[in-house]
């Protein structure tokens, strides 16, 4: 066991992936000498050289489109998109090309491209630097989407993404890049299946599902609720596509109440999908409607008011109060 931040864990995970897989490579803006704007690729160009850590021109469609070509030639590119809001110039390549090449080739071609996107708010930044666009990609068949919430998962999940034969988008919770935790670099342990949800805390009165940046918030809310005498189960979803509904269903069958929390706007978000599925799967176990806690239907607001936008402990506890009132 060793202690490191999420950013360092991803850096170490990429280092291991580059070492283990000679045909993997990193691509993105500023990922070379600078080590990425968040320094996630720090030092890698010195170890692996500019053919494996490729500083690209400033063009997101170009990064993803050429990564697709490299994958068709047998390589596994890991693309870094600098910020969530900058993925949209590459949206066409991701949704119309990357997601569909395996299907439209009748399974003859695979494009194991990994796309890393630092996402979410809470860092006091400016426009287009704080968004959570995961639902827009989850809606597209052919993509897999994962989001680690702690360093151990971050270390292993990036390597599992590189090994996966499908395209994988890794949404990295940027405000948690400096969150420290223990990493077992010897064995993945519970991180074994990146598409499996983890029950982080068991409880009996209600279930909270969260992922990425909101996992620590959900845990803190559960601790606060415990002081009020409520026992909450907390699930870290980890995978946004596919979603591990079995784990969520089993939890709701036990607790009877479900709250889903994410930073992305509530309308049309992942929370709605979970609410719908759970009402189909566990309707008779539910004591209350599934309640969603998320962002508002507005462009991500300016940094000075983002505290009012981001779901926090109190917003989750308010949702719990509503769930318990039925």
């Amino acid at each position, binding site marked *: 066991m060793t202690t490191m931040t999420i950013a360092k864990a991803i850096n170490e995970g990429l280092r291991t992936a580059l070492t283990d897989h000679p045909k993997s490579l990193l691509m993105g803006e500023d990922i070379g000498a600078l080590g990425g704007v968040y320094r996630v690729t720090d030092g890698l160009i010195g170890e692996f050289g500019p053919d494996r850590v490729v500083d690209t*021109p400033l*063009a997101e469609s170009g990064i993803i*489109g050429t990564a697709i070509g*490299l994958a*068709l*030639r047998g390589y596994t590119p890991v693309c870094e998109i600098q910020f969530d809001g900058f993925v949209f110039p590459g949206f066409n390549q991701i949704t119309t090309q990357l997601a569909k090449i395996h299907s439209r*080739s009748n399974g*003859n*071609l695979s494009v194991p491209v990994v796309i890393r996107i630092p996402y979410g708010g809470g860092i006091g930044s400016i426009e287009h630097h704080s968004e959570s666009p995961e639902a827009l990609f989850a809606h597209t068949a052919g993509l897999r989407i994962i989001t680690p919430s702690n360093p151990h998962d971050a270390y292993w999940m990036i390597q599992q993404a590189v090994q996966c034969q*499908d395209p994988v988008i890794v949404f990295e919770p940027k405000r948690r890049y400096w969150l420290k935790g223990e990493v077992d670099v010897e064995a993945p342990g519970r991180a074994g299946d990146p598409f499996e949800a983890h029950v982080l805390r068991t409880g009996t009165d209600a279930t909270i599902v969260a992922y990425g940046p909101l996992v620590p918030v959900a845990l803190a809310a559960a601790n606060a609720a415990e002081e009020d005498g409520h026992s909450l189960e907390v699930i870290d979803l980890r995978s946004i596509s596919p979603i591990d509904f079995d784990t969520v269903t089993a939890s709701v069958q036990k607790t009877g109440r479900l709250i889903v929390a994410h930073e992305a706007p509530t309308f049309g978000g992942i929370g709605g999908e979970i609410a719908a599925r759970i009402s189909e799967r566990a309707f008779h176990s539910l004591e209350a409607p599934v309640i969603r806690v998320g962002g508002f239907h507005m462009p991500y607001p300016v940094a000075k008011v983002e505290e009012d936008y981001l779901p926090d402990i109190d917003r989750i506890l308010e949702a719990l109060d509503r769930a318990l009132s039925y």
Partner: protein
Amino acid sequence: MGTHLPSTEFDGTAVDDQREADAEAVMGEPPAQMVQLLGPDGKPGFDPVFTDYARKLTPEVLRGLYADMAAIRRFDVEATALQRQGQLALWVPLTGQEAAQIGSGRASQPQDYIFPTYREHGVALTRNVDLAELLRQFRGVSNGGWNPKDTNFHLYTLVLAAQTLHAVGYAMGIQRDQKLAAANAAGSGNPAAEPAAAVIAYFGDGASSEGDVHESMVFASSYNAPVVFFCQNNHWAISVPTEVQTKVPLSNRAKGYGFPGIRVDGNDVIAVHAVTEWALEHARQGKGPVLIEAFTYRVGAHTTADDPTKYRQAAEEDAWKAKDPLARLEKYLRSEGMADQEFFARVKADGDELAAYVRRTTHDLETPDIRTAFANTYAEAHPLVAEELAWFEEYSAGFAGEEPAEEPARQAVTAQASPKAGH
């Protein structure tokens, strides 16, 4: 040359003249005029660089180029007829562009990889793609239809210009493969087995307006990727003329990216072959990308859903028909005594046979089971796909023993819902 500008405001000196000269030496000086080696009258032309390439074409090769062009034109007529008879959902005709496609496709080598757009039926022929398989997409039984690994001819791409970036990435992969092969060879003492290869990215004058074409040229130039951009300027992006896409010859744009751009008479199969062979050699030798603009004309409609009489003049069409790629090569072959009446009769008979094969096999193209779509959405197992497939199986089993739905009524609804125009 214009005024030399410093590359950054912090650059205290003028631009390094030697670097500029080196760049010119690498690029070479592409010809200022359109390359033409066979005029519309069937008379040979001359070019200081490319005539040498043309001289390598034996009478047998020239007859083969003619036979290919005739075959693909006959195929095009047949596919159009099949669409009119309701056997294909849509057809994208290529008549007029046979020389651009056959000339460039025949100049490629098996190890080269081709990224087409969706009109490159002639290139497909030169890469030995089964033309019946090529019709799968247009018949609506596949979104692809052939395995690109068999022929190094990629699937058609309907989103304009997306494939130009895939081509550059693939070319970047070739560069890395060559380095890996060289390193392995150095380690083992054996010479590198990897043959030098290049990539061709096809696109049209309409697609040249897409951002992906720009980004692909930036990336290709940045990494000196072995890629040939082959733009078929057929003068119309559905109803919008080239003049709306560009104020300068498209081949001139290459200069801005720092690699050679060549305009070639796209209706002159000999010139297209020569220029493409030169460009592929240039790329395979590590000298970087080339842009070829094949100046040609889409004689028919953009697709079978299009009506060109609404936006262009018959006089323009007639002027281009006078430059017909097949007619001019036929004149040349006859005047030089390289082909006789028997040859042309045999080509026609072969074309009819190909058309009959395509007609026969199109009817027989198998409609897939939707379970193949479940199977191919992901490369690895996926719980949501498994869950939805299980539901589908159970739902389908509920209809066991029932009569199938009224097919004519269903067809009528489908026909009504069909889009009238694509790209």
